[in-house]
């Protein structure tokens, strides 16, 4: 049984501290949709998503009302499209557009899976597929794309890394009228996970069941609020406070995931324990770190504070859910976190510090605007650095940078909504052209040989 204080605490979490379920994401396998032609395949893909996800939005809204907890995003992830269009890769865009149409018609916020997994090598059809990404992202609205270029087991596919540098630039150019928004829907991974409910990187892995429900929790504001009650606690006690709070947040996610999968006749996949910020004040991961005692996020000590936060969130969350997965940690996007935006605007956080932070958080360099004239090889080198961190440390890392077309350091990109805004940050100007153009595979690290 719960007490009246528990009731009030939950209501305050929702009303004052931005507690919500960040996303209910339905993963749908498209493997049964492959037909003899791109046109038939696109039609089959459209029908399948329209059928499987028909009730996703109304069900999420019903759950939200019943349990009194907002569900912000209703999303779909699908089998990497490059696998579905392998026989006709030059027509992959048809499937991408069919998915986007289904998402719009169903009221789904984002649909992820215009993806390719090329961590060990790029097949010919994947090469063609990758080149379709800029055009597809510029001509669709809700479709997201991800590419896995490395893993601890396989090493880093530097040919794909080189290609992706240019893909980011092309996407930025084609969406230049909207501050290069297309790049906000594109992410490059190392050690991508198959059950991630968050965008832009969600896709439905081939090892997954036919239809699953994955839930992403939220709650940076709740954690920050809880820490306000222990202003003088040492870090052991502060970590305990975070753990207890993460437990409660995750339990809400677990409940919604269980109920949603039951009502949607899908398998309960996982709860992703990530703390996902929004640009709203009071919903910031950066402000949690500052609550722990940093003057401003990005100063020395930030990496240690983030490591502690990330670990405590996992410990609390794992206890609260029967199935944990996805990315599960703290997100540190720049444009989507008011504390990060302000620190970046004041020049208090650098790309180098962000890179260090990605060694201990759940993802990577996320929603960072860089100058529009950044060379493709520099973007590839940024991707390679991140992938190396992921590969060596057995963790997921990612790069979602926005080379803002026509913009320089000091200017800003603004996407509105949950994607927020970001000042253009400087990158190192030394060239990695020779290194990147070597191509090949960075071999898997010695500790990957575990059999």
């Amino acid at each position, binding site marked *: 049984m719960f007490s009246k204080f528990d009731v009030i605490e939950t209501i305050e979490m929702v009303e004052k501290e931005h507690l919500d379920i960040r996303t209910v994401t339905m993963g749908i396998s498209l493997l049964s949709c492959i037909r003899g032609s791109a046109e038939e395949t696109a039609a089959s893909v459209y029908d399948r998503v329209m059928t499987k996800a028909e009730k996703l939005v109304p069900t999420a809204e019903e759950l939200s009302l019943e349990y009194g907890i907002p569900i912000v995003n209703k999303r779909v992830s699908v089998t990497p499209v490059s696998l579905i269009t392998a026989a006709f890769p030059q027509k992959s865009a048809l499937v991408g557009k069919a998915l986007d149409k289904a998402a719009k018609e169903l009221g789904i916020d984002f649909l992820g899976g215009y993806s390719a997994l090329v961590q060990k090598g790029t097949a010919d059809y994947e090469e063609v597929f990758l080149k379709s990404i800029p055009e597809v992202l510029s001509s669709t609205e809700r479709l997201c794309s991800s590419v896995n270029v490395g893993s601890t087991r396989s090493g880093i596919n530097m040919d794909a890394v080189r290609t992706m540098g240019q893909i980011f630039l092309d996407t930025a150019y084609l969406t230049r009228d909207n501050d290069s928004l297309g790049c906000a829907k594109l992410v490059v991974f190392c050690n991508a996970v198959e059950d991630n409910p968050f965008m832009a990187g969600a896709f439905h892995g081939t090892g997954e069941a036919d239809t699953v429900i994955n839930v992403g929790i939220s709650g940076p504001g709740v954690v920050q609020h809880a820490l306000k009650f222990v202003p003088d606690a040492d870090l052991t006690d502060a970590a305990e406070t975070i753990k207890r709070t993460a437990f*409660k947040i995750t339990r809400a996610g677990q*409940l919604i995931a269980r109920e949603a999968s039951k009502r949607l006749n899908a398998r309960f996949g996982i709860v992703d324990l990530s703390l996902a910020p929004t640009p709203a004040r009071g919903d910031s991961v950066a402000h949690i770190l500052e609550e722990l005692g940093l003057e401003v996020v990005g100063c020395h000590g930030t990496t240690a504070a983030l490591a502690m936060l990330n670990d405590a969130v996992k410990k609390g969350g794992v206890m609260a859910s029967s199935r944990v997965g996805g990315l599960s940690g703290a997100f540190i996007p720049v444009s989507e976190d008011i504390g990060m935006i302000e620190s970046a605007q004041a020049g208090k956080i650098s790309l180098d510090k962000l890179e260090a932070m990605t060694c201990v958080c759940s993802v990577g360099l996320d929603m960072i605007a860089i100058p529009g004239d950044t060379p493709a090889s520099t973007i590839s080198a940024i991707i390679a650095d991140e992938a190396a961190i992921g590969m060596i440390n057995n963790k997921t890392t990612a790069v979602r940078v926005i080379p803002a077309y026509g913009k320089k350091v000091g200017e800003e990109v603004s996407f509105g909504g949950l994607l927020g805004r970001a000042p253009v940050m400087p990158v190192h100007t030394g060239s990695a052209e020779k290194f990147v153009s070597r191509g090949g595979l960075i071999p898997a690290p010695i500790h990957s040989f575990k059999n």
Partner: protein
Amino acid sequence: MRAVVTVTGTDRRGIIAKVSGFLYERNINIEDISQTILGEQFAMIMMVDTSEANVNFVELAASLEEMGKGIGMSVRIQHEDIFNAMHNI
């Protein structure tokens, strides 16, 4: 199903009468009531049973919220499981 009705706002006369009358009209049984003061706010918490209610839960939640606005209070109803999940191991 069992649900929790919470009423928060500035204390005034007739709140319990108004809310309980509203629930009675919809055939909802009140099993427990407690009150507390939260800062300067009045907070009333009711455990209710909606299994014999004559409206569905979604309509009930919307009409309760609307009724609350009429008396200057914030009124919501939530399935009890959200509290059980978050506050019990």
